[in-house]
């Protein structure tokens, strides 16, 4: 046991672990706040869909030798609006709209990567993520965007609550449903782009979904659900990074596994309580 604490203490001395902790915790906070609204509105897989689009944008950025985040953020934001439009105007079901944009993203990514002469190590690193390699710039971006998410969800808490519970009633109540939906989806696209560096394209949606569904198992009030999802998400990042360091496992996947463990515990508590 002592050895584990020594290893944790040792890990905290490294600048890359410190950066990973800061970026991971802020990312987790942003994802979990948005996750509660997205899960309850049956839009939780939008994280997955947008992550697939960001795979194409990263491939494009690598082809153009550009900073991936700079290319990804505007394109993924546009893709998120496309999903909303498809859902609202073209009467395509939400999950089908996500599937459509998602598969388009992957197909484009593969074509771009193939045009560039095949998959390289950089592109693969975005598939699986590497929180330990986040740069100082990425840490700052994560902090700024996650704090923006926290601020906006706090500012719009009651509007988001009303829309999540009953969109039509919210509209009659004078809430600007379309505008708020766009803000929610835009914030999600920002968080997803940041998230692919941490857990990768394939796992980023888990940061959105798992803390929310774990919290939904054990609490019955809306504010408590958001708060508990945040606690689960941050605890998963901290435990996940230390566990991956001690056990020599990939950090992103370990964070997801810890998140899943929290869900299993919450699910069991819910079952026991009946």
């Amino acid at each position: 046991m002592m050895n584990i604490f020594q290893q944790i203490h040792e890990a905290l001395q490294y600048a890359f672990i410190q950066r990973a902790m800061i970026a991971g915790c802020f990312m987790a906070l942003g994802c979990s706040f948005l996750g509660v609204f997205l899960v309850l509105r049956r839009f939780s897989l939008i994280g997955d869909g947008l992550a697939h689009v960001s795979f194409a944008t990263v491939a494009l950025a690598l082809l153009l030798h550009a900073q991936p985040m700079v290319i990804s953020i505007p394109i993924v934001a546009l893709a998120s609006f496309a999903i909303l439009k498809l859902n609202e105007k073209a009467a395509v079901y939400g999950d089908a709209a996500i599937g459509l944009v998602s598969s388009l993203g992957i197909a484009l990514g593969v074509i771009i990567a193939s045009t560039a002469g095949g998959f390289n190590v950089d592109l693969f690193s975005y598939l699986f993520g590497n929180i330990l390699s986040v740069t100082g710039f990425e840490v700052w971006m994560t902090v700024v965007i996650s704090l923006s998410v926290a601020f906006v969800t706090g500012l719009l808490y009651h509007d988001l609550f009303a829309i999540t519970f009953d969109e039509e009633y919210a509209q009659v109540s004078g809430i600007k449903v379309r505008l708020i939906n766009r803000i929610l989806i835009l914030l999600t696209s920002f968080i997803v782009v940041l998230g692919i560096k941490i857990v990768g394209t394939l796992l980023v949606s888990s940061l959105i979904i798992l803390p929310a569904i774990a919290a939904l198992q054990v609490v019955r009030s809306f504010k408590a659900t958001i708060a508990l999802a945040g606690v689960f998400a941050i605890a998963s990042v901290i435990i996940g990074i230390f566990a991956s360091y001690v056990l020599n496992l990939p950090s992103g996947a370990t964070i997801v596994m810890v998140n899943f463990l929290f869900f299993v515990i919450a699910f069991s508590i819910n079952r026991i309580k009946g």
Partner: protein
Amino acid sequence: MNIIEIKNLSVKYRNVKALGGVSLQVKAGDYVGVVGPNGSGKTTLVKAILGLLPFEGRITFQGMSFSQFRMDRHVGYLPQKMAVQDMRFPATAKEIVASGVYCCKKFPIRLDAHDYTAAEEAMRSLGIINLKDRPIGKLSGGQQQRVLLARTLVHSPEILILDEPTVALDPQSREAFYKTVEILNKEKKVTVLLVTHDVVSVGKYASKLLYLDREVIFYGTFESFCKSAQMSDYFGPGQHVICHRH
């Protein structure tokens, strides 16, 4: 005074007529039952009145147009499809009822102790104050519907629009719900527009009946409807039972 006046209202969905040439007046204090077969445009009418759908024609409220009239403050709406669809939705009954005051708040919406007191008052008036801390999904269909009605009433609307509110309720809960709406109409002079297939209850409680089938087939008192030819067209031989009960 006409609280709602509709002139030559038409609504189309992708060039298919859902409603055409609807003109009617609802007076303050009226209790209008809106009936008609499936697909007759009942919900479309409600949504047009609420400004949720584009339409042709003119709808005014106390003589004011949509832009002049604060729909959110004066109208309480209980949508179709409720009771609560997501049984795991993480909110207490009081949280849901308190959301009824959002319409009267400036941006950013913030609730204070007075709002929660108003929510509790609305729940008390409907006899559900004991449910305030219970999760919404753990309540029965009848209890949920009363919670949603309390949400609608918390800002004291002058007009109450109810779209098939009793669809998921057992007969006892349905009767209790209608009684509550009747009290609001009779004692608090709330104007009620109730969309329903439950013609027996319409006959029992509503002062007027609007029979729609993509246009107005009949609009008047229930007594005159019982004597009309339109009654037997739609309701068939059951009409005598319904009118007799009334």
